[in-house]
């Protein structure tokens, strides 16, 4: 079984390119961190022999062995709790939750044990919980959720949702090296659809820093995850209408990089937020609240949100497409805001 690393390297050599998919970027980050630090180990359902439901860890077991790549029994509370215990006693576990929807089954251990440990005991809990989230794959209400906002209401956690392969690799490395519990959602729609050149050398992306993915003058569009691509698409289309969009990719959902957001809004005077998560108490509400406080004087229009509606993620293609914010929706909202 050839490993992701070998495959990517082989592909790269042939093509004289270093293009990696979002999924490969994540695999590479895991692989390299496992090589770098022998305190790192992976645990989760079907990650060993099977290589993971999405094949993120294909070939890992052969290379790293059973002590580093642990196939866990079907018990999210049990193995998340165990990972916390391992983290408190010197190791650096990386937990895979097969689908982000199932993270709810380990909820209590995350929010009550992991998150509140350092504040009370000053002990680090260097654990990463990574999981494929998000919709778009016709997977219905229980394999499509975007649970990131829940965890962004839990002090003590850090929450990361990368939107590009480059960021995914650099942020996952930072997450693994971080001494705090990090919840790391990988948008499963991007896994094999998004490719990018990755540098050869080891690099990290700081947790807590947003990234301006496109500079613009007229509107600050704040987004993250799979909506980054749609936002960029929308920005391309809007150019022809004379609207210059600044696209901020949050990357880290909690703690928020409020400074970058506010600086941008001070420049553009208009703000909109785009996310795939539902509207009420999605990250957009926190972003909007910050802008409405700290950048009020600069605002030249209402703060708009383009989000999914407040419903479970429906399965049927027509419904799912209607559920998800589309490029058209973004273009429409931006045009309206521009003309305000």
């Amino acid at each position: 079984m050839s490993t992701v690393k070998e495959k990517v390297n082989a592909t790269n050599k042939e093509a004289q390119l270093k293009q990696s998919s979002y999924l490969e970027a994540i695999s590479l980050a895991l692989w390299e961190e496992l090589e770098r630090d022998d305190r790192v180990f992976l645990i989760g359902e079907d990650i060993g022999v099977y290589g993971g439901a999405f094949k993120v860890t294909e070939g890992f077991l052969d290379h790293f062995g059973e002590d580093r790549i642990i196939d866990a029994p079907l018990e999210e509370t049990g193995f998340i709790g165990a990972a916390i215990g391992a983290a408190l006693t010197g190791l650096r576990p990386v937990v895979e939750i097969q689908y982000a929807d199932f993270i709810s089954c380990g909820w209590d251990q995350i929010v009550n044990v992991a998150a509140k440990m350092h504040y009370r005991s000053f002990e680090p809990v260097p654990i990463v919980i990574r999981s494929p989230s998000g919709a778009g794959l016709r997977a219905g209400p229980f394999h499509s959720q975007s649970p990131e906002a829940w965890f962004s209401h839990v002090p003590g956690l850090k929450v990361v949702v990368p939107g590009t392969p480059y960021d995914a690799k650099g942020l996952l490395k930072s997450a693994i090296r971080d001494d705090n519990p990090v919840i790391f959602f990988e948008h499963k729609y991007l896994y094999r659809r998004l490719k990018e050149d990755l540098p050869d050398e080891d690099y990290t992306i700081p947790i807590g820093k947003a990234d301006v993915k496109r500079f613009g003058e007229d509107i600050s569009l704040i987004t993250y995850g799979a909506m980054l691509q749609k936002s960029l698409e929308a920005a391309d289309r809007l150019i022809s209408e004379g609207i210059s969009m600044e696209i901020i990719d949050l990357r880290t959902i909690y703690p928020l990089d409020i400074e970058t957001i506010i600086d941008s809004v001070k420049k553009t005077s208009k703000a909109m937020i785009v996310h795939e998560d539902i509207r009420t108490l999605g990250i957009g509400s926190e972003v909007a609240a910050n802008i409405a406080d700290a950048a009020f004087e600069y605002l030249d229009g209402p703060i708009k949100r383009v989000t999914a509606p407040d419903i479970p993620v429906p399965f049927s293609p027509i419904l799912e497409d209607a559920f998800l914010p589309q490029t058209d929706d973004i273009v429409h909202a931006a045009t309206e805001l521009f003309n305000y």
Partner: protein
Amino acid sequence: MRVNKKIKIELYYYMRLGRAIEERLESLYRQGRMPSAIYLGRGQEAITVGAAMALEDGDTIATTHRDVIAMLPRGMDPKMIFAQHYGKVTSPTKGRGEATYLGDMSKGIFTTVSMLPDFYPVSAGAALSFKLQKMPNVALAFSGDGATSRGDFHEALNFASVLQLPAVFVVENNHFAYSTPNSKEMKVDQISTRAIAYDMEGSTIDGNDVLTVYENIKKAVDKARGGKGPTLIEAVTMRMKGHSGHDPMNYVPEELLEKWRKKDPIDNYQRRLKKEGTLTKEEIVRVSEEIEKTVEDAVAFAEESPFPREEDLVLDVYR
């Protein structure tokens, strides 16, 4: 227990129908005709059908991803199963739910969720409801082997045992949880052993013999109905297909599958029924034809049904 002829034939019919439905689901999936994932219970028909047949009207049943055919004896129309996989508005979820997560409370069938085995507690709650309302009904729930590792399994069994509820918990031990074999999921040899932790009756039965399944589960159902409390039944079988449509199941040794193919619950049962004269060659042909037609009709229904309307997207979140 003597199983009468009518029931014997029904067991046969529903197993055949169930398999035909799943075979069709698989081919439609491979052809890319349905947006849904598929979770096939091939090889496990004796358990799903045998258990469902052991229930009466007013009882409830809680299935997992792999047990959709258990709905058939409870009255679920095959049309609904295809419409669901197609994401059509004619399905019980009106296209909101995928795959096997459909139900119909008027038939006592819960619309379950993916999280395993979340409907063990819910089913215990239905049993509580029957007890509190002094209704003579029973709540039956399925779980896989892997899902017995989860806390919900433990809490449900403990709850049902402390309150002595009319519940039957069936575990389909098909030896794998996705790619994870029993040995990595638990240390006990028999899952029914776990009943001891709740001072509950537990037994392990041959899950590929539909009469054994029917009789044993019927006994547990009758016991529950008689106010004698819950039972855990482990039915041993083998998952003959990948976890879901895209899983080639490379982790399962071919010999193991070969061994279990010989134990096919339908082939063996058909042979037996023929041998004992319950079923003739002609009847088999008739059943085959009927089933083919039923499946054809169901697929046609699903194909022809409309998709849900975008305008209805946000309806029904609340009552």
